[in-house]
């Protein structure tokens, strides 16, 4: 049994410790917002937080998350109130939407580390997250918008 804390909720899962966290989140816990895209940390669709750090859950063994604070897209806010979610809606970012959970989770870490990121900061932080619909220009705008909201003291 491995103990997990995901989105502040405790779980006990009976899986082998080398199982990638992605499959545990999706299949054992039923949190399907986190996506499988490549299985080799090339696309970022599976990005979640472990103790606030962006992690590619498709290559992170579940053992690494044991007892740590894991946050998935479902845990970002209960009501679409996170500045990134609001910015994503305002800028009409998603198209097919499949990569967007990972994009938002990567952006959340960027904004914590760089509350007013430059375009270069965004390039660096987001280059690992692929989008085949080409929503990159809107992601960039939405990150800047969320940064402005947070600077004005909007909800974290």
């Amino acid at each position, binding site marked *: 049994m491995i103990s997990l804390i995901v989105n502040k909720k405790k779980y006990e899962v009976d899986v082998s410790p080398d199982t990638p966290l992605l499959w545990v989140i999706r299949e054992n816990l039923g949190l399907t917002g986190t*996506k499988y895209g490549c299985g080799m940390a090339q696309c970022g669709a599976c990005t979640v937080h472990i103790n606030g750090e962006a992690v590619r859950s498709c290559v992170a063994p579940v053992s690494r998350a044991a007892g740590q604070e894991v946050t998935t897209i479902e845990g970002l806010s209960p009501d*679409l109130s996170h500045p990134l979610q609001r910015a994503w809606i305002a800028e009409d970012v998603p*198209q097919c*939407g499949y990569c967007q959970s990972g994009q938002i989770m990567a952006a959340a870490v960027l904004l914590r580390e760089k509350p007013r990121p430059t375009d270069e900061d965004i390039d660096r932080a987001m280059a690992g997250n692929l989008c085949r619909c080409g929503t990159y220009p809107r992601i960039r705008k939405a990150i800047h918008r969320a940064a402005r909201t947070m600077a004005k003291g909007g909800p974290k």
Partner: protein
Amino acid sequence: MSTFEMKRREFLRFSLAASGGLLIGFYLPGKSKMALAQDQSKAFTPNAFVRVASDGSVTLVMPQVEMGQGTYTAMPMLLAEELEVALDQIQLAHAPADKAYANRFFGEQMTGASSSVRAFFEPLRRAGATARTMLVNSAAARWKVDPGSCQARNGAVTHTPTGRTLSYGDLAAKAAALPAPDKVTLKGPKDFTLIGTPAKRLDTPSKVNGTAQFGIDVRLPRMVIATVAASPVVGGKVVGVDDEKAKAVPGVRQIVRLDDVVAVVADHMWAAKQGLAALDIRWDDGPNGRVNTGDVVRSLANASQTSGVTARKDGDPAAALAGAAKKIEATYEAPFLAHATMEPPNCTVHVRKDGCDVWTGTQVMTRAHATAVEVTGLPPESVVVHNHLIGGGFGRRLEEDFITQAVRIAKHVDAPVKVVWTREEDIQHDVYRPYYYDRFTAGLDARGMPVAWTHRIVGPAIIARYLPAAFKDGKDVDAIDGAVQLLYDIPAIHVEHVRHEEPVLATGFWRGVGVTHNTFVIESFIDELAAASKRDPVAFRRTLLGKSPRAIAVLDLAAKEAGWSRALPRGRGRGVALLYSDWGTYLAQVAEVEVTGAGEIRVRRIVCAVDCGTVVNPAIVKAQIESGVVYGISAALWGEITIKNGRVKQSNFHNYRVLRMNEMPSIEVHLIRNRETPGGIGEPGTSVTAPALANAIYAATGKRIRKLPIRIKEAV
């Protein structure tokens, strides 16, 4: 009401009520799926698309599927405009497989070819107007007044002289008993209040909090997970399988061996993947096991020496060429391409003695249904397909191969089984954009203006396989699309298609279809003619577009916004490309690139001018152009599937490279607004990008790109 109508309505009601899962994403607050499903039995259902429940909720049964292109917003806008409801009052349900939802361009339920708005611009407005008229008539009958004295607005009917009002919910039951009107009047463009506005997408909230349900997200009681290894060579067969080690992996339940694929069925994906890796499969590669990319190119080049089926002939090209002052010849090549949708192919199937359910995301509902019926041998009415949001289509989900495969596997599994392809399986078992080979000859007169144009397209006839009824007189409308509509005023034109099939890979539709390939070669070759004629590429095109004012308008706008005549620093260049096809959209793009001394390409800026006629949602149009451009840049710079011994060499995003955030140019989209017929918008941005980039590289370096992906060092 005809018998057919009755049966159809019963069927729809059953489908909707029987499966709450058909109803998706965008509920009004406090509304449960079950409540909505139960409402259907008392609902006002004037046609296949519209349900007005007794609580006033409006459901649009979506004929087209959402794969990012915004159709789940544009279609409701069409309905809401005429039904007189607010856009956020509309809830969406995926349509079941039923001919009531056929796309008029294909005669079946199909989302593709940039056709959704074009196909449903009138039917959905008519559906809304019909429903509204019946609701108004119902209110007028209740009040015993003239319907002409009543007005519908915001989900309610008001008797204007007295101010009495009844909501659509109050009217639904009575309206259902009324006869459908013989004739309804649709609003003119000047009365549109929703169409033409940048309304927010309805699917966004579900896509930023993890609740959007894609096919891969299906979860069912007792469900097991499978992943597969299909023959690495098309046409290959399984000879033997040593599955001892795979069966020993904890969580692995079953190995399903079929003639061309082996599936590992497990409690979860990780066990299935490990099981697959532990399998020792011996394959008989069959006749394609020795084929390499070079063989394909050689046979295409050989085929290009023969003549093909004439698709267009103006004047006497042979005579015009013979009399030309200058003759220019060129051949072009475009590689096999994978779609690489972010959501890999997947399909969940539960086969039982008495029925079969299929959960997937498909662009072709009726084909998905038909293949499940065929593979299971069950009666059509006992097979149900549940469609989902699609995590990227780009043509990949116009094919039902992965559905057929999943149903074949599921027949051997005593539980619902979700078959998920790994990314490697996806890249190596796609239905690829074909390899094309094009041969051009043009003649210029003494002034340098073109007098003859011959274009020979060599490639497969996808239509012959995919829509055989549309393959007439050997003419493949896809292979020649974008080439036969050549807008340039050239007195002698010959366009022909040499059908040449390469069985080594399955080939099909890829974003922009035949137009993407043809626009690359045509807009590159016209650029060659401009260079040979020592004329500016924009000015040269402009002088040849006398019969196409809409084309001139987009060309002028793109050139103006891009600052076409402004000088650029050394190492940079601008290229232009123009697109027109049967999508009905005119698009001009100016690309600006920088080429380093080492031959590296940096795309700096893309400017597009678009005339797609009547615009339903300008924000979605712009997003689609941006999207198409990014897809086009990835393909132009890096996209290439190569074959060794019949096997695809690429396997994942590390060697099938696509554009990333840090490589993203600025993109500007400028719309020309008018009241022409709506044109398609999902694909044009892709089609025009490769030639604009190639022409920009020529401007920057003097090297002409005649083969994709762009490799400057190989160019001359």
